[in-house]
């Protein structure tokens, strides 16, 4: 398979402008500037390219929802607030090939006929943000960013915004608040950001990996893109596996690659003497899949059919050496801390769940605790304000069911059965 997004990842340093151009960089921008934006939307629609930030919304549908008659100014925001535990693919794109990121913004900006672009980078990726800023300056000097890009008359400037932390700022409406200099609490929808986003103007927010595919589709076509995928997937995907495997890492592979190939062939399977017990397929806020699901193609529909979510497709593996309750505590600790505190079910419900889980793990659980936790899950997820709490609940609720026996064993024994076992 041809490496597309990661074609420059082997270089010791991210390519500068000359090196990027020598490899065909910014050729797609030239192609795009000579085409009708609506025709490019039709083209991307034929690929089934969906959002890789977690939600999986089809890109062309997002463009059509805003429409070509949206008022100006229009904003384009690239979301590089990757904070989903177990996901580290966006970091690679930002750090290893910043000009590819800029070309993606420019081509998308032209398709959207945007007036200004912001790249929203999490503060922990400040070095990546600096690399991107340097590349933007380089591109601006070469006439690729700013006014009259490549003599086309199209104008787009790019600002890199370095955020100041908090997972919730990756949620698109919280991101808009963060960019406007407000607390990163999510906004009520509707209005959707494409109607009223940044400063009340139409705004489209996209994940970095999603947009990096757009220039390749524009220059090479939808058939080429679709042919890169297998098992019902389209294009390529930056997959990653971490947690309890021999060789955690990331790989660009055909979309639709099975979990078995990712976990065993690429990540080496569970460490010696252990077995794979379960895995979260799409980052922390997805439901567990089991060894029986290993042949599931890792693409949106197949993962949904298996009962979980494709999410960011950062796989996290759990092995037989780790207590599943401890794993759930490790997951939930993150969501407890990162709740923005705006709505009560999330702010108070998640810590309550955590305290119950911690008691079970400490051998102080009581009969009925698991059922109580399931009841809390059922109440928190649908009654919270945004998608954060449903995301937090997904691994917990599925873990409480999948690991019911081991949780009940904790309660019956008054101790963690894994303690002292390793």
């Amino acid at each position, binding site marked *: 398979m041809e490496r597309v997004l990661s074609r420059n990842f082997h270089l010791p340093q991210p390519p500068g402008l000359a090196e990027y151009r020598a490899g065909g960089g910014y050729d797609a921008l030239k192609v795009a500037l000579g085409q009708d934006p609506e025709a490019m939307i039709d083209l991307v629609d034929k690929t089934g390219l969906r959002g890789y930030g977690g939600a999986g919304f089809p890109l062309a549908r997002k463009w059509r929802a805003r429409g070509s008659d949206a008022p100006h100014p229009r904003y384009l925001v690239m979301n590089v607030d*990757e*904070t*989903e*535990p*177990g*996901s*580290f693919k*966006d*970091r690679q794109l930002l750090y290893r090939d910043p000009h590819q990121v800029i070309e993606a913004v420019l081509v998308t900006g032209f398709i959207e006929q945007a007036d200004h672009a912001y790249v929203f980078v999490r*503060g*922990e*990726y*400040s*070095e990546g943000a600096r690399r991107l800023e340097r590349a933007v300056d380089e591109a601006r000097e070469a006439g690729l960013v700013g006014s009259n890009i490549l003599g086309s008359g199209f104008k787009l400037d790019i*600002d890199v*915004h*370095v*955020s*100041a*932390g*908090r*997972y919730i700022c990756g949620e698109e409406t919280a991101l808009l608040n*963060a*960019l*406007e*200099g*407000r*607390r*990163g609490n999510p906004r009520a929808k509707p209005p959707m950001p494409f109607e009223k986003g940044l*400063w009340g103007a139409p705004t489209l927010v996209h994940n970095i990996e999603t947009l990096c595919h757009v220039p390749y589709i524009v220059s090479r076509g939808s058939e080429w893109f679709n042919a890169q995928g297998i098992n019902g997937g389209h294009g390529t995907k930056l997959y*990653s596996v*971490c*947690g*309890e495997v021999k060789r*955690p*890492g*990331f790989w660009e592979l055909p979309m639709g690659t099975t979990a078995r190939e990712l976990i065993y062939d690429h990540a080496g399977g569970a460490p010696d003497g252990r077995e794979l017990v379960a895995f979260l397929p799409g980052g*922390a806020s997805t439901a567990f899949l089991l060894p029986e699901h290993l042949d599931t193609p890792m693409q949106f529909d197949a993962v949904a059919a298996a009962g979980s979510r494709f999410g960011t497709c*950062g796989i*996290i593996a*759990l092995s037989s050496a*780790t207590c599943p309750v401890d*794993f759930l505590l*490790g*997951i939930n*600790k*993150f969501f407890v*801390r*990162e709740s*923005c505190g705006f709505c009560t079910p999330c702010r108070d419900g998640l810590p309550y769940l955590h305290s119950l889980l911690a008691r079970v793990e400490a051998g102080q659980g009581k009969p009925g605790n698991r059922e109580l936790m399931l009841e809390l899950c059922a109440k928190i997820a649908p009654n919270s304000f945004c998608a954060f709490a449903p995301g937090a609940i997904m691994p917990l609720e599925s873990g409480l069911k999948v690991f019911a026996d081991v949780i009940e064993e904790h309660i019956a024994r008054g101790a963690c059965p894994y303690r002292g076992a390793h």
Partner: protein
Amino acid sequence: MLTDHERSHLAEHIARYPEKRAGAIYTLQFLQQKYSYLPDEALAEARDLCGLSVTQLDELATFYSLLLRRPVGRTLVRICDSIACHLAGAPALLAEAQRLTGSPLGGISHDGSVTVMPHVCLGLCDQAPAALAGEREVGRLDQDSLGELLASLKTGAEG
């Protein structure tokens, strides 16, 4: 106090946005870089630049996890404790860090060299357990390499 040059740099950055307050995060980050945290005086300096009250700025400073309202050691070490790092031993590293610095998480070590804090996923899951020492990424930590890291910060070799 901000110098005239710093003030004009900030004003120029803020002017790029349609509204002044959008420059508040950058301004607070800039002030934190200067003072190592955000004392009340820093918020007062940001007030006029951003067109916000000190209370509104405090709302921001207390929301964003990378903005600090309390003093910290010379280097801030953020040890990731999200799931991949949790599985790879982050809880034990956080306990060891407290033992080595003689200070609770978030506190300043006795010699003033370091503050250690737990932090959310740093996107270094393939190098778990990982940390940021200042802005430097450190992966595959264990008790020994954590000890070496903290010792190097004492002598000012890092920062």
